[in-house]
């Protein structure tokens, strides 16, 4: 019994960390920039596909993972350019790039999936380097180290002069332009970084599960949103560092609940429905509360 609890906890922690990259990416666009970016489903798969294909072709897995991050940056660049330079609404721009990425991912992989079963991944390299052969142990080390690196870089970046301009762009675009910030640039930067992180998550997940698949990104945006919302609700974070930690913590709780539900017999196919319901409830509660208190709220934005 304890064994099972330990396994579920440690596995959820691993998943919380790797999918945490997606949550942090979603947090950057939805919350920091106020840019509802749906590229995520495509860029997650793109990360997995690029890393897998490069590894199969003999590239060092760390380099392959880095390349996946770069590919994600480009996906985010495409979405943000559509929005800032061609004035296509953010939601539509994200959907367009996401759909385009489906074809691109098939091209990158040359098929619907790529197996990594006999390939050397970052997990194998770390396992060998540390002399640890317990799967969950080295998985946690890899995910943990990457998460710590990402956390420290972002926590620093969001406090720099550029980082502040980026946050202010999401907060008050008119003001920040008045202070001489090119808000097109900050938007492009933020959306690109976000998708780079999402692709990094995809690359690590693909190596962890031993394959990349064209459908692996479906529903990632909703999962990321669910994680961010859970993190905000549970930890009520204030300040950059805590917001980032809350995104990671939210992902851990989300994966934990899912793991438990799966063990209790939930059909894996129902996962996305449950997640969608969770997000709907979380988004509807604030409105319903105000409605009960007879407060007025404007109609929801259509874009």
């Amino acid at each position, binding site marked *: 019994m304890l064994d099972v609890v330990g396994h579920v906890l440690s596995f959820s922690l691993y998943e919380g960390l790797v999918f945490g990259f997606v949550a942090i990416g979603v947090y950057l666009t939805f919350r920091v920039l106020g840019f509802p970016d749906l590229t995520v489903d495509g860029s997650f798969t793109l990360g997995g596909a690029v890393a897998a294909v490069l590894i199969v072709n003999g590239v060092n897995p760390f380099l392959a993972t880095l390349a996946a991050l770069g590919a994600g940056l480009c996906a985010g660049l495409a979405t943000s350019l559509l929005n800032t330079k061609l004035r296509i609404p953010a939601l539509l721009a994200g959907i367009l790039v996401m759909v385009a990425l489906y074809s691109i991912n098939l091209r990158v992989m040359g098929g619907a999936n790529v197996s990594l079963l006999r390939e050397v991944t970052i997990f194998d390299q770390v396992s060998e380097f540390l002399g640890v052969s317990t799967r969950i142990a080295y998985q946690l080390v890899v995910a943990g180290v990457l998460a710590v690196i990402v956390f420290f870089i972002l926590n*620093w*970046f969001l*406090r*720099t*002069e*550029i*980082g*502040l*301009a980026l*946050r*202010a762009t999401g*907060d*008050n675009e*008119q*003001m*920040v*332009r*008045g*202070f*001489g*910030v*090119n*808000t097109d640039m900050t938007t492009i930067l933020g959306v690109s970084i976000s998708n780079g992180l999402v692709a990094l998550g995809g690359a690590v997940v693909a190596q962890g599960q031993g394959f990349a698949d064209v459908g692996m990104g479906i529903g990632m945006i909703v999962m990321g949103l669910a994680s961010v919302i859970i993190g905000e609700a549970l930890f009520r974070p204030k300040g950059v560092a805590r917001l980032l930690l809350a995104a990671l913590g939210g992902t851990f709780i989300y994966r934990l609940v899912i793991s438990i539900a799966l063990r209790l017999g939930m059909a894996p196919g129902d996962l996305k429905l449950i997640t969608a319901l969770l997000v709907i409830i979380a988004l509807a509660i604030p409105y319903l509360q105000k409605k009960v208190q007879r407060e007025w709220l404007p109609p929801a934005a259509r874009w």
Partner: protein
Amino acid sequence: MLRLKKITKVFSKGTVDEVKALDKINLDVDAEDYIAIIGSNGAGKTTLLNIIAGVYPPENGGRIIVNDREISGLSEYRRAHYVGRVYQDPHIGTAAKMTIEENMAMALLRGQPRGLRVASNKQRRELFHAALAPLGLGLENRLNTLVGTLSGGQRQALALVMATLSKPAILLLDEHIATLDPRTAQIVLDLTEMLVKRERMTTIMVTHNMEVALRHGNRLIMMHKGRIVVDMNRGQKADLAINDLIVAFERASGEEFVDDNILLPSG
């Protein structure tokens, strides 16, 4: 210092809603000018500020020159170096989800390249402290407070300090005290006077309040239907009362003065 030449702005061009917001405006502003602009709704006051700030370009042929440099082609964020601005709505001049310190750090780098240095340090905090202390609102001791939790008056005072922190050459005030209660409005107005004098910024203040327009600044401009109809210097406006202003307006525009809003004396 600031010269506007043949500035015209037409909205909804080519439709039945076409409005000529500015009609061939020529304006020479001296470096030491502190101009108060009054005029009824739709006179083009805010449009004029938007043109100077670069929110949108003037129609073809219009030129904006600052210190002998043409800036008509520069986008809004590139003009920020020259132009500081306070809006009517305190929410526009400050960022709610960021702290006072972060807002000030944003403002400090007006028009300068932003890099990968951490935005605030001890030296800058001392600078912010010194800039906020004269307000007498205690904001200097609450640098880590989120701006969204401040009152409208506090936010507007902060917005004014932020707009002037890096000493832009031109300060645009767009009815910046209109939404404040009388006491706070007076505080912000006094602060404006102090900052304009101390930093010697060229200032253009749009107001609905004739008394404010008469008492503040060295020059008074009245606008009507996109044109400047009255332009008085300090000597000409010194002994005027509100009634004289209305007479001057009616003589210049050839129309009866109708704006209940503008007659309200300051509280």
